[in-house]
């Protein structure tokens, strides 16, 4: 399962492609793709939205205790905010959707980082 993520152009916030084709700040509101082709098509479309989102890429998603979570730890940090400051970032919202991210155990290299380094 995949989700599509990137950063808002205007403020840099980590965002996810939502169900209505909009970009949403909460991972819990992200559109999850079962179909690889649909995911790739969404990524290709997102790359044309240059005034909205920067460097969109697909991430792997896994089931967690109360929902779904990004497989890669890096992507969970993006979806939650920095772990050194409990008062900053998306995790401050709390609730089940945040718990799902906090309790996820998956591990994999982040495609976001790999691509960033490849482009450097």
């Amino acid at each position, binding site marked *: 399962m995949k989700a599509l993520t990137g950063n808002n152009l205007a*403020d840099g*916030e980590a965002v996810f492609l939502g169900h209505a084709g909009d970009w949403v700040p909460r991972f819990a509101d992200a559109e999850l793709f079962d179909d690889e082709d649909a995911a790739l098509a969404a990524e290709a479309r997102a790359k044309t939205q240059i005034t909205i989102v*920067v460097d969109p890429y697909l991430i792997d998603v896994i089931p967690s205790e109360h929902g779904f979570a990004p497989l890669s*730890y890096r992507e969970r*940090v993006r979806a939650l905010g920095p772990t050194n400051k409990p008062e900053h970032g998306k995790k401050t919202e709390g609730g089940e959707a945040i718990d799902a991210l906090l309790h996820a155990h998956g591990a994999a290299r982040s495609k976001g980082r790999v691509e960033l380094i490849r482009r450097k």
Partner: protein
Amino acid sequence: MYQYDAIDKEMLADRVAEFREQCERRLSGELTEDQFKRLRLMNGLYLQLHAYMLRIAIPYGALNSKQLRKLAFIVGAYDKGYGHFTTRTNLQLHWIKLRDAPDILAHLAEVGMHAIQTSGNDIRNITADPHAGANADEVDDPRIWAEAIRQWSTFHPEFSFLPRKFKIAVTASPADRAATKVYDIGLRLHRNDAGELGFEVLVGGGLGRTPYLGPVIRQHLPARHLLSYLQAILRVYNRHGRRDNIWKARIKVLVAGLGAEGFAREVEAEWESADAAQVDLPDLELARIRAAFTPRNFERLPAASSAFEAAKAGDPAFARFVRHNVKPHKIPGYAIVDISLKKPGETPGDCSGEQMELLADLAERYSQDELRVHYEQNLILPHVKLDDVPALWKALGTLDLDTPNRGLVTDIIACPGLDYCTLANARAIPIAQQIAKRFADPALAEKVGELGIKISGCINACGHHHVGAIGILGVDKKGEEFYQLTLGGSAEADASLGQVLGPAVPANKVADAVDSMVEVYLRERKDGERFLDTFRRTGLAPFKEAVYASAH
């Protein structure tokens, strides 16, 4: 302190206006991200995990209270109320919005600050000994020379597209507080036997994937030829440095390839072929810069202060602060006061807007309006009367700025790591927090003594792990955070690169591993030995045995 003149101010104003227009063109879609990225990076604006990050240059780590108040205003108005001081003596703001960036740069320009050349393959912010102008053993004020290099290198057209980034550090004291051996160029000002001022020139030091200590390519360069010699080094690098492979593009790889002597021959030949007089600073200009750093009117004071001594005798907590955070000053009756940004449990190097405001007030009241940034992510008030230290200490304590741990096990360097940085493999800050909490009792930290722990979240080594007495490097093992430990590094006068202890350990075992190594040290140490000394005597074996017995 050096003050910008009318030309400097005009250049900055132009640059802000230019960047404002570039941002508007990006937001409207006229520029793509690929086109815009290099423009924003030229203004120190990165895109990180949660937001844009602005890296603000602090030349040779020197700030006045007006600048600090401006930074406090900016972090309150445009960020989340704090900034992060880095190992390059810059300040990073981690929660910046693109649409605010031009306004922030305009605010910075009002106080003679900017973020130019804090990114890109150019000559970056120049660093220097943070004790400059206050330290008894310096042969000259290194800020004068760092400022000359700053002016020469800013917007230098020939060196704006080097093979890779380029960092220069200057010291004028035998004790190395500027990590000059791990810089692209390290400059060590000294006097030769004839009493003439000159630079020992080190080239090709660096950390990252292939760490090197910089070899000396010239023992004594007459100080007046500094700029022409730097030009020669950079020309050789520009000509022969590799542009085809980012991992081999730094000057250290070129110097290692040619050998220090071979590289030096190239530089000398280039230097002799150029017209040095066209580049070297005219005496008049040097005198103008020097005047900006002329010592203020220090008062004639007795070497000892009865108020200071009485406070030390009467309050063990103050005495502990003095032992670790107060250093001798070249003027009798004055002291250099270290301010630790390493309260155990907090993020190393972070400073809140409220703390910046307080420090601006204290710098103004007690330290001739000067504050310095140390590359170990701490701050310094360089010119404090001994009589004033007790009152200063009390004031620092009101905002947790009185942690008495400079140089101790809890004074940990940590890069932002995976909590913020797009390049990181693993987190660095929480590891620092875990270790510092183990040694939070000041008496325990003091018992352990001098021990530099340095943590990087990836091989780029912003956290200087190769030169930590204990170095910790975050690595990615199939997406999980693991940490490789190195021992025996130092970035000071006795510089050395750490040796790898063994297999990386998981995140939840790092603090235990440090505990075990400290236990070995306490068991093995002989009179007066620092951790580093004991390690250098015993080697890896006892530490390795202890860590892998307890970690697995």
